[in-house]
């Protein structure tokens, strides 16, 4: 029996497993609806990685806490449902200041590699990571748990590198500070200001969520979201799952759900068979990837895998009970209590845009040293274009060396080669899995597009830009700051996201002034 702690959930005492996130504990306790939206809909976990703010609950009297980002503690009091006023007068605001040569934002594969390379070459390196343990989304693991085998070497290397790692840190501002940069973050213990001569942004990617009728029902979550919730301690044993959307992530997600004891009723890839087959054939030139894909397929053998099929609607009273799937001609309904749906990944470029870095399409533009258009600001991994873990590591290493300024990345040509080959692979993948046009037509006039503010599609009809939609309909005005609806509006209407201003993440007012 694992250790247990006792939570109070809406006044009810609930024993839960220790060491898991609040979101996972609540899922295991059968609480699917965590908050009541501004129009009164129940909402549950969507992204499970701190992006979407759908899982927010009041914790010990402090409202708007992300359940996916905090671990359970014995005696913790949780209130779900409508917005609660502030119930605490505890002013546990504390500030901490650090100084370094290189600050790395994010401790996924790119951030870890960057931090290792920078610290190993003698630069005083500080890593600010939103996760509870280093590893990023791909190597997500709970504190105290063994890191996944694939990440162990890097995580151990990070621990030896001399870099200072601050976990649970949401960076909400990066600003010029004389010749240096000042990063402001919220941490579990208060706020933290880091001054550094160079900044490496390794902020990873998030899932692309696109609106369809019923997508706001609790139980409909991201594909990576379901996986992240699983890695955060949720038990999906006995759940009936449908995995749908697009991209190579669907396979590993289905595999991990199956391994966790879920009954995977269907895996549906919206891209057509010829696209997927073509992509698979193309994989022959990347034997490592082919093997990976095959292994995932094997793990959930028995679950039907359909191409050219997508979710048209989620149905249920209060929670998802079924999804209606379609191939564009016929529709069929599949019963499920977990729908893991996402349409690929979107780079997290908010901090880079806040810094004023030039963009190339939806990705941050960088030079051969991973330096952005803003001198002293480097970027590595997914923000430079979604390309997966191998590219992220190579780019992280290059950025770490270049930012530390004591070694020339060009002296290690293998890194540049890994980056180039991985980027070529990514370019093929992007085209193959982009959502088909029919998906633009799924949302109905009353389908909510902005989940923070419950702005329906019909409210956007008369608008011609993301900014106008935001001002007139409130879409993008909520705490996720448009991270969910922004890319959806880009897909639906071709609108570019509004500008990024500090705070680039919600932050307590008492923390805004941390650095000055």
């Amino acid at each position, binding site marked *: 029996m694992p250790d247990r702690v006792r939570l109070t959930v809406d006044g009810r005492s609930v024993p839960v497993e220790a060491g898991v996130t609040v979101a996972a504990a609540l899922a295991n306790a059968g609480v699917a609806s965590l908050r009541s939206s501004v129009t009164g809909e129940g909402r549950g976990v969507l992204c499970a990685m701190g992006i979407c703010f759908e899982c927010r609950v009041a914790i010990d009297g402090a409202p708007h806490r992300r359940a996916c980002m905090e671990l359970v503690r014995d005696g913790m009091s949780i209130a779900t449902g409508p917005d609660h006023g502030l119930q605490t007068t505890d002013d546990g605001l504390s500030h901490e200041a650090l100084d370094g040569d290189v600050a790395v934002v994010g401790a996924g594969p790119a951030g870890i590699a960057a931090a290792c390379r920078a610290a190993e070459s003698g630069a005083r390196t500080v890593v600010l990571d939103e996760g509870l343990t280093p590893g990023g989304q791909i190597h997500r693991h709970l504190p105290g748990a063994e890191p996944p085998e694939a990440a162990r070497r890097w995580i151990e290397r990070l621990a030896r590198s001399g870099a200072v790692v601050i976990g649970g840190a949401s960076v909400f*501002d990066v600003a010029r500070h004389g010749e240096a940069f000042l990063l402001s973050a919220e941490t579990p213990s208060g706020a933290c200001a880091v001054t550094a001569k160079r900044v490496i942004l390794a902020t990873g990617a998030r899932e692309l969520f696109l609106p369809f009728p019923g997508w706001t029902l609790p139980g409909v979550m991201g594909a990576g979201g379901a996986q992240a919730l699983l890695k955060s301690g949720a038990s999906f044993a006995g759940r009936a799952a449908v995995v749908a959307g697009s991209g190579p992530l669907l396979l590993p997600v289905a595999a991990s759900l199956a391994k966790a004891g879920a009954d995977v009723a269907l895996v549906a890839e919206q891209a057509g068979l010829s696209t997927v087959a073509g992509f698979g054939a193309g994989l022959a030139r990347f034997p490592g990837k082919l093997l990976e894909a095959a292994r995932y397929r094997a793990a959930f053998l028995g679950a039907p895998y359909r191409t050219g099929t997508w979710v048209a609607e989620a149905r249920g009273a209060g929670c998802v009970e079924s999804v209606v799937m379609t191939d564009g001609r016929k529709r069929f309904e599949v019963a499920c209590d977990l729908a893991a749906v996402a349409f690929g990944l979107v780079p997290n470029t908010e901090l880079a845009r806040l810094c004023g870095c030039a963009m190339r399409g939806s990705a941050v533009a960088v030079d051969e040293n991973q330096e952005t258009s803003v001198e002293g600001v480097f970027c590595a991994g997914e923000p430079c274009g979604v390309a997966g873990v191998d590219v992220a590591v190579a780019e992280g290493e290059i950025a770490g060396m270049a930012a530390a300024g004591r070694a020339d990345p060009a002296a290690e040509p293998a890194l540049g080669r890994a980056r180039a080959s991985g980027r070529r692979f990514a370019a093929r993948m992007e085209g193959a899995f982009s959502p088909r046009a029919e998906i633009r037509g799924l949302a109905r006039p009353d389908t909510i597009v902005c989940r923070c503010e419950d702005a329906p599609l019909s409210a956007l009809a008369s608008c011609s830009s993301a900014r106008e939609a935001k*001002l007139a309909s409130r879409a993008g005005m909520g705490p996720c700051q448009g991270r969910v609806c922004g890319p959806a509006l880009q897909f639906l209407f071709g609108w570019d996201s509004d500008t990024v*201003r500090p705070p680039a993440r919600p932050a307590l007012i008492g923390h805004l002034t941390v650095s*000055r």
Partner: protein
Amino acid sequence: MVPDVVVVGAGIVGAACADALTEAGLSVTVLESRFAGGATTAAAMGHIVVMDDSEAQFALTSLSRGLWEGLASRMPRACEDERTGTLWVAADDTEMAHVRRKAAFYAERGVEVEQLDASDLEREEPNLRPGLAGALRVPGDRVVYPVNAARWLLGRAVGRGARLVEGAEASSIGARRVMTPRGAFEAGAVVNAAGAAAPLLTPGLPVAPRKGHLVITDRYPGFCRHQLIELGYLTSAHSPSPESVAFNLQPRATGQMLLGSSREFVGLDASVNRRIRDRMVRRALEFMPGLARLSAIRTWTGFRPATPDNLPLIGRWESIPGLFVAAGHEGLGITTALGTARLVTDVILGRPSPIDPAPYSPMRAFPKTAHA
């Protein structure tokens, strides 16, 4: 068909002018460089407030607040109209003396007010810090969401046949004509309601952009009930110094808190100035320490169209035939939009106005300042 009037600018002032002009039976075209309500209007707090800093300011704000009251029952929910009232907060006994003077000023002019002592204030707004001296409550003041109020006013005008042309940025205004990249628009009269951009179209208008910052929080229903302003606000608003801050907190209908205010003359640099934002936040925390625990979700900036004597520019611009001005409303444009529209409509139609329009004439003599 040449319309009676072309209104340049679809901010709150232009929208209100279009509404009033069409209500009076005139045909109107509104030209907007981007989209309705997207510039200074979008950055405004939306506090509908009667001011006492001068007789002229009182007359216009009081007329305007009455007009807003008249619309209240018709405004859709998206306009977020709410009669929150204003509390002018006094920190000490000196400021309480000011509250008494202010109360007398309003009362003599028929505006309902109420003086709150320290314990009344604590009861009304328990999140203010203890030890404040009291406040003046102006219960009839209100809050609206400016963007949707402007869009609703425009919608009314369009419903009466007005034409809204978005994406038509005026490049110059001549006699009864406005030039845009989409061609010339002719009319019997032109109203320059271009906000901070008004002086670019009518050179000589003494309007300078005065930058402000606002911070909005997540939802905390009930955290505060009134629009709260420190009594020293007017000192900040009228200060000739290049920058100033004042405590100004607004409860939104959504349960969010909107926190201001700052004033700077820095041209048209819209970036967040973290130093002055932090000064503004610290000032607010002095009055309301509990704000520190509220989550801030966005910050933005905007440009108030400021004039040298703190009064707007409303009326005929005599050097160009057929040109009327409705600009320079500084931080009171949402409040005074409706009164402005009334005066503009009256002068165009040659009707008498309910208040003396002379103090707002753009042709008046101005004090010299470093900024305008």
